[in-house]
């Protein structure tokens, strides 16, 4: 996942995924603009989906949204929401704030 390590905040998504949109809105609401990568628009989308499903594990609701911060896989919506409520998300984004538009 070279894409993920190049940018501070990357969310793998699908164009039809409204939960991905919701997570995007959450980040924008706290002042960071994530790079949204729609895997259904990628010719290797199927492979990416398989890889993301492995990353997410059995508990994930789906392969997307898959959130990467600083190249590290942070999880899907559950993890992001929990991290946000505990205050951790804002902390994790601090080093990347200056590089975001």
């Amino acid at each position, binding site marked *: 996942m070279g894409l993920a390590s190049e940018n501070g905040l990357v969310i793998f998504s699908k164009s039809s995924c*409204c939960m991905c*949109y919701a997570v995007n*809105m959450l980040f924008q*609401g*706290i002042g960071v603009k994530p790079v949204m990568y729609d895997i259904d628009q990628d010719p290797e989308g199927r492979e990416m989906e398989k890889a993301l499903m492995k990353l997410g594990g059995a508990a994930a*609701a789906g392969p997307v949204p898959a959130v990467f911060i600083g190249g590290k896989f942070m999880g899907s919506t559950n993890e992001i*929401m929990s991290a946000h*409520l505990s205050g951790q998300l804002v902390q994790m984004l601090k080093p990347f704030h200056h590089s975001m538009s």
Partner: protein
Amino acid sequence: MNSSSTQFVTSGGMGMYDHMHQLSMWGESFKSNGSPHPLSSMLLPNTSPSLIITADMKLDNQSEDTSGTPGPLNKYDQEVTKSSEKIQRRLAQNREAARKSRLRKKGLYVASGVEASHVGFNGAVNSGIATFEAEYGHWLEEQQKHVSDLRAAVTSNISDGEMRVLVEASLNHYYELFRMKGAAAKADVFYVMSGLWKSSAERFFLWIGGFRPSELIKILRPKIEPLAEPQLQGICNLGQLCQQAEDALSQGMDRLQQTLAQSVADGQLGEASYSPQIDTAMEKLDGVVRFVRQADHLRKAALVQVSQILTPRQAARGLLVLGEYFERLRALSQVWATNTREPE
């Protein structure tokens, strides 16, 4: 005894006459309020046991197998099994209606106007929703106990350790409800989104199938003060974080609603759908299930944070406030329903 009546007489091991007696007793409990319960008149049009007994008589005549041993299901056995299942569902519904009637008398349960919404046009029952409603009745009874325990605890001198146990028990009870709702959402997501099991006053405040965490925090904060500065900060901050998360989910939900509406307009959802498009339609409905579950996850995460920010005693007080708040909402629905004024 032939196999048909064996199948009708289930785990209770009751004979035909016992069933008749049981049914007439249920009929009595419906009438005990003075007027037949609206739900019972939907399920048992004449509130009489004769409807069910007639079906059983038909089973007797149809069955050819007198051996009583299970064999490969022939056509008649299949009919018998289907009717027997229908009867079992009816009996379960009757028991449930009687239970709700008891809860209502105790002021613990308020029927919504669309209580029997899970009964489809053709009379088919959504068993996932029927299960949920039965479980919710139990849940409400348990909830009353938790609230009483909390009420007794906050005015007592029990240790922090003991208080924590009560807090955990109360929290787990809420988490159990979220689990139940998650299962129900798979059975009928629109039912859960509309909060149909709730009283009408509770439904007024509905946000994606349940309460809005930021609202609850606003309500409970003044009731648990005075708080030390870090805790006050923590709770206020949590309220803000919940608001942000809710806004994000609301925006996603709005978008999903739009795409769903478009699908309906395009004829992609519903009975006339062609199979190539069914996948997209199911995907979208799964999307709604996902939002309902995500909202419940947020509610749970908010409760977890509240319990971590506050001391056990403060958390107990907070949960008591919450429990009483919902009790009052339910009572409000009932008061309103029983005091409907005549149109002027």
